[in-house]
């Protein structure tokens, strides 16, 4: 579904990611793990059109999306939930979700999606009138993911969904992601929380110094001595 081929990208002409390749099969969860500053987020930003591709290519359903702006990717079925949530703070939770369906013009369809989100996340429905920046971190993360789902993506990209959340909420978020995958959405997830992420994912890539250095099924990487040493604190 998504293929990243030897991508080099960075900020203001300074490359951060030198050579990253990965492949995402439809219906799977693919994880991207690695230490701070290894280039995970930059790679995602390149995929979603926020950073220029200096070399290599990105193919989505066989078509190059290198340099395509993020607002166009939404219409193609790619949705990204950024690190730090980036909710529209002064809008209500409901309005945030409605903005998520900005590319949809059919009001009935939007309402239908909203109701299915509420069914999935009753707590979000309870809070729908509340201003988004008054929610707790966990709730904000739920709303951010829910907003990402409102465009009914085929590919959902999650950047550090568990960052700054307490363990109980982390479990909740991960269960939620699993349910999203079960509903047929392909998921790419970038996480510092490597163990839980690898356990959940079908396939995973390890990034180091701007390169994808290791890959394998989640289970295989969990068992890998090198990975254990470097990222799992073992």
């Amino acid at each position, binding site marked *: 579904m998504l293929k990243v081929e030897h991508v080099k990208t960075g900020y203001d002409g300074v490359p951060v990611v030198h050579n990253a390749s990965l492949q995402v099969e439809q219906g799977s969860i693919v994880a991207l793990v690695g230490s701070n500053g290894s280039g995970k987020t930059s790679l995602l930003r390149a995929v979603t059109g926020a950073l220029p591709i200096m070399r290599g290519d990105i193919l989505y359903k066989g078509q190059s999306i290198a340099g395509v*702006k993020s607002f166009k990717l*939404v219409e193609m079925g790619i949705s990204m939930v950024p690190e730090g949530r980036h909710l*529209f703070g002064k809008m209500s939770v409901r309005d945030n979700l409605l903005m*998520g369906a*900005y590319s949809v013009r059919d009001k009935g369809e939007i309402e239908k999606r909203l109701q299915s989100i509420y069914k999935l996340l009753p707590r979000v429905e309870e809070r729908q009138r509340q201003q988004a920046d008054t929610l707790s971190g966990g709730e904000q993360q739920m709303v951010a993911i829910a907003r*990402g789902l409102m465009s009914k993506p085929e590919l959902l990209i999650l950047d550090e969904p568990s960052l700054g959340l307490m363990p109980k909420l982390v479990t909740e978020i991960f269960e939620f992601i699993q349910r999203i995958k079960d509903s047929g959405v392909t998921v790419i997830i970038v996480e510092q929380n490597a163990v839980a992420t690898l356990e959940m994912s079908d396939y995973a890539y390890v990034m180091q110094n701007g390169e994808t250095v290791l890959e394998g099924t989640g289970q295989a990487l969990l068992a890998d001595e090198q990975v254990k040493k470097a990222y799992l604190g073992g």
Partner: protein
Amino acid sequence: MSVFLQGLYEGIINGSILALIAMGIALVWGVMNILSFSQGEFLMLGMFVSYYANRLLGLDPIVAMPLSALVLFVLGIIIYKLIIARALRGPILSQRLITFALSMVLVYSAQLFFGAEYKTLSNPVKFSGTIDLGFLTIAKQKLVPFLLALIVAGLLFWFLRYTRMGKAIQATSMDRYAAGLVGINPDRAYTISFALASAVAGAAGCALTYYYYLYPNVGATFQLWGFIAVAMGGFGSITGAFLSGLLMGIADTLTGLYVNTAIKYIGVCVVFLVTVSFRPKGIFGK
């Protein structure tokens, strides 16, 4: 009492033009964090559209208003695409000062093309006369800026709150990056905001020609007071800009009426200073 009411009324009329300028500045600042130093020049251009529509076609400013708003809207789009969008990719200082340079270009271009002398409408306007309420005499044409300010404030409020584009603009103003991620084209939201602000100034310019002379540098004063109104209302707050504009107009006129016209601007400044002493971020600032 009747003198006071008359003064109050005149103050609101004068304040309406400031309110219109200020709403444009507040919109542009609120959405894209650009200080629009060229808002006064858009007002000036609106006045020239009105002047030529009157001189060449015999149109009343009120009839020329939609034309002027349209011309300035289109000009706003061109200026945004050609200049502002590029500056936004540059360092912060050029983002802040680009409209300042733009205003100088517009002033001197106007001087080159239209001449530097003072002008007033040459053909008689049809929408004129007075309404005498006994305690208040209303010059009909002076109602135009006030009504316009009310309508523009209402329309902007409605547009931003209830339309798809308006919501996109609000979302972009809160978080440009996130706006792109939900499928909004942030660049288009910026373009429309900038063009709307200049269209508002264009319409205000038309209203102003009913009772004010025009010359290439006419925008400077209004620009300055418009800025103060924005600061007083709370940066980025359109409602605040609207109310402060009116308040400053009232302060200006009443000081002139009861103290001395020579020092009427001091009255405005005192109102401003007192306001920001108690609310440093402005009336509606957060």
